[in-house]
């Protein structure tokens, strides 16, 4: 690891001021630190945002659940409020990586990193989340712009993620046997008017499967998507899973999620 300047600002303003093209925010460090150790990334300034009180915590209102950026996966998984309002979200958080990762990794870090096989982005998409930053509020579908890419501008800091509470929802994941990231993950959310099927792991970036969403919107039962072919074209193919296998898992886990709702 190359040496760097470590900063621990107490508020968002200072954090933002310190940011530059050669800096990184440090939340859980579960991605940042290994990439620095492996020499894949190096920064002049590392800005630790864990001391900014405002960024952590969970708030539930009648319509939404808002989770502060530095809230850890383990906290979300254990939260009574989340379990009551959106149990699928608590379940998702509880199945991320392993205990060590869940006790450090944060929701803000997860979505800002936008790993194509991360779990949270699918929840954001399916639950019509709004990403609140220190500059603006961004709809989830505009936030995740590509592989490891987001709408965040340099120095922009995620402060919180606001999820719309659905009628029902479930998250199903086929873990990568080595890393336990998602080979694929499917977040199904049934809202008042429509159903969202968000898929992670299958392609270079999280997406809504429009076909499956539409069919389930008109009939929310697993039989509604019987025989619906999920196309493998455009899906990732690597040593852990071929595109065909991923396509099979997407349709299978969508059904499982619907049945679990």
């Amino acid at each position, binding site marked *: 690891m190359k040496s760097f300047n470590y900063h621990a600002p107490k508020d968002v303003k200072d954090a933002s001021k310190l940011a530059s093209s050669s800096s990184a925010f440090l939340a859980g460090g579960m991605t940042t630190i290994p990439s620095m150790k492996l020499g894949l990334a190096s920064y002049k300034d590392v800005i630790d945002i864990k001391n900014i009180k405002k960024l952590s915590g969970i708030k539930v209102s009648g319509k939404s659940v808002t989770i502060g950026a530095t809230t850890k996966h383990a906290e979300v998984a254990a939260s009574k409020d989340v379990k009551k309002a959106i149990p699928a979200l608590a379940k998702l958080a509880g199945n991320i990586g392993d205990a060590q990762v869940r006790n450090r990794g944060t929701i803000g870090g997860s979505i800002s990193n936008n790993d194509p096989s991360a779990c949270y982005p699918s929840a954001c998409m399916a639950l019509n989340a709004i990403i609140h930053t220190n500059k603006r509020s961004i709809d989830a579908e505009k936030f995740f712009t590509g592989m490891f890419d987001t709408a965040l501008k340099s120095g922009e800091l995620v402060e919180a993620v606001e999820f719309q509470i659905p009628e029902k929802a479930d998250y199903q994941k086929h873990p990568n046997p080595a890393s336990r990231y998602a080979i694929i993950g499917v977040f199904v959310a049934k809202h008042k008017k429509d159903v969202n099927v968000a898929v992670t792991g299958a392609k270079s970036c999280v997406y809504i499967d429009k076909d499956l969403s539409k069919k389930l919107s008109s009939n929310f039962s697993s039989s509604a998507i019987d025989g619906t072919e999920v196309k493998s074209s455009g899906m990732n193919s690597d*040593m852990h899973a071929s595109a065909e*296998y991923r396509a*099979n898992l997407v349709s299978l886990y969508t059904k499982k999620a619907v049945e679990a709702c």
Partner: protein
Amino acid sequence: MASLVGSRVERKEDTRFLQGKGRYTADINIANQTYAVFVRSPHARAKIKSVDTSKALKSSGVVGVLTGKEIAEDKIGGLIAGWAIRSEDGSEMKVPANPPLAKDVANFVGEPIAVVFAETLDEAKEGAEKVKVDYKVLKAVVDPADAMKSEAIHDGVDKNLCYDWLLGDRKAVDEAFSKADKIIKVDLINNRLVPNAMEPRACVVDYNIASEEITLYTTSQNPHLSRLVMSAFGNVAPENKLRVVAPDVGGGFGSKINVYNEEIVCSWASKKIERPIKWVAERTESFLTDTHGRDHITHAELAVTNDGKFLGFKNETIANLGAYARVFGTVTPTYLFGPCATGVYIIPAAYSNVKAVYTNTAPVDAYRGAGRPEATYTIERLVEKAAMELGMDKTEIRMKNFPTQFPFKQTLVHTVDSGDYVAGLEKAKQMADYAGFEARKKQSEANGKLRGIGVSSYFEACGIAPSAAVMSLGCGVGLWESAEVRFNPTGQISVFTGAHSHGQSHDTTFAQIAADELGVPMENIDVVHGDTDKGTFGMGTYGSRSLTVGGIAIVNACKKIVEKGKRVAAKMLEVNLDEVEFKNGEFVAIKSNKKKTIGEVAFACYLPGQRDEMKSPIPEGDEPGLIESSFFDPANFSFPAGSHICEVEIDPDTGNVKVEKYTAVDDFGRIVNPMIVEGQVHGGIAQGIGQALHENTQYDETGQLMTASYMDYTMPRADNFPEFNLGFTCTHATSNPLGVKGCGEAGAIASPPTVMNAVIDALGGQEISMPATAEKVWEACKAMKKSNAKAA
């Protein structure tokens, strides 16, 4: 006093290990030390055109930079192959030079080219980045199946072939095959594994300018052997000027047998730069450069009669040695593999033919089981397939071909002294509720799942010793083991052993046996190992040899202590020698019942003089002191055996395989500490299930290791296993006085075929290769559905 041998004594070493107080090589720091970072080849095969160190030398904090050129100039020797194997045509094996720092060509990704020493680790890393190596990249040979048809990667090694070895009689086999009703055939891949010891390799070297002695702290399974190799072949220092210390070592599994490039380079360099040096591998370096395991391609055939008798066995294997032949690299796929490939069966005619090839991949060497897992996989897949094709029960076909008379002269090499294979399999069947399987299968089917059961009966040759045998098979050294027992005047005892514990719990097991022999509490005994300046000599720990060879040396040394004690006690008790008995730590004069404890006798041994009333207790012809040593060389290997049964359930929609039940019944002869033995079996089974279902080492076609981190290399985890159901049968080994057989590798030997047989059973006989990953199994399930549909 109750015997300690046989009881579940808690591990002495747990106090330090479980409290984080272990002292590993990386914990050792020496004043004024420098940090080493190696410059490694990023290419699988490349000519090294030039190495420019000028910028690195100017880099901040850099103390020195050394390359293959300097090491060649100083005539430092390379890494060695420890066993000489001959080809079928009588020619000697072809072994390329393996310099510690590659000078002209790099032959695998990660091979060290240069080394940078600096004041801090960060500075060493910076410096290493500034070493400029100019490569001419060559086409790499990666797939062992193609190696013999590819361009030779080493000068003088035609077809990349190290040897083409034969054990057995082809003619007799052909004859047997001509009489068969049926020939069962399998094509198998024994997947390459990365050992993944929890502690990465490391070394710390301290050169003493005054005494010219080098002290090397290192992560070795066999410090004395390391010293011998580094001195005799590496030319690093004379043996008496080289001290090798292997303190606590966090797992080896075979990967820490070899003396590696880094140890040789740092030892040589410490003298050159006159500074201590510390090097600790990063996990990526472990993945790339620790010796790997397995990597066989096998075609095997079994000739059978319609009623399930075995007539003959053929085994044609290509073994991948990787880029270089290392210490056990050449023997693992030959004498550790071929003889055991006929398994626990009477097979009148057999041969094993192995072609060992070089490729541009990490060197392959012994890994837990070394050759015997590959052998067991070969025969046990064949036997299971034979049962399927003949429509016989898989346990019945095995029973039918088990020997019942011991010693059992196995077809190819070994004479197995003792065993009861029938009892083992019967017990396993009972413990696994074999009879209830069909009902459980129906239950699974009702839930939309496929259920399979697999059996494997194994034996293995371990306790790697008999010097006479191993040397006749090509080993470069004798493989006895030594021990020294020092009875100190105040009653504490130090037991020195040449075996080395890196997870095997010798502190406890060896103290148990010494305590029984000497009749003293275990607490009085300290087991000392891992330091060439302390123990006499040793061959180290691998091949499940610590107890069966090293443990017996301890027993014999203790017996010598007791003998001398008797002589001294007789004098102290003023009786004849034959009137003294040793019992429960006391020397008793049979007639008078007068006693001296072994502690009193030991104390007396250190007081040979006369004063006032006190007379010297040392008999004529004896010397003062109470220290005895022994070198034990057994008459034969030890032959643990057993039967394992596994049940898996497969989800055909995802291909996920769940190990539902795992039963292991093993015969390890007499068991010293059942708890420790169970731990060894657990670990072995976990590694075997890892091989069967999870661990998937993959190189791409250019020779880059794709699975070089835990993000991609699947280590099995606790939630991949059911609770293991363990049982034991016992027939004593006759080749050692304790009747013990090795237990360290059995779990890893028996389990891969057990699990794969279960998976293949669930798939209706459809064969798939290891590891049976979800996607592979899913593909097989799809094919099964299709063929079922066709049949219907």
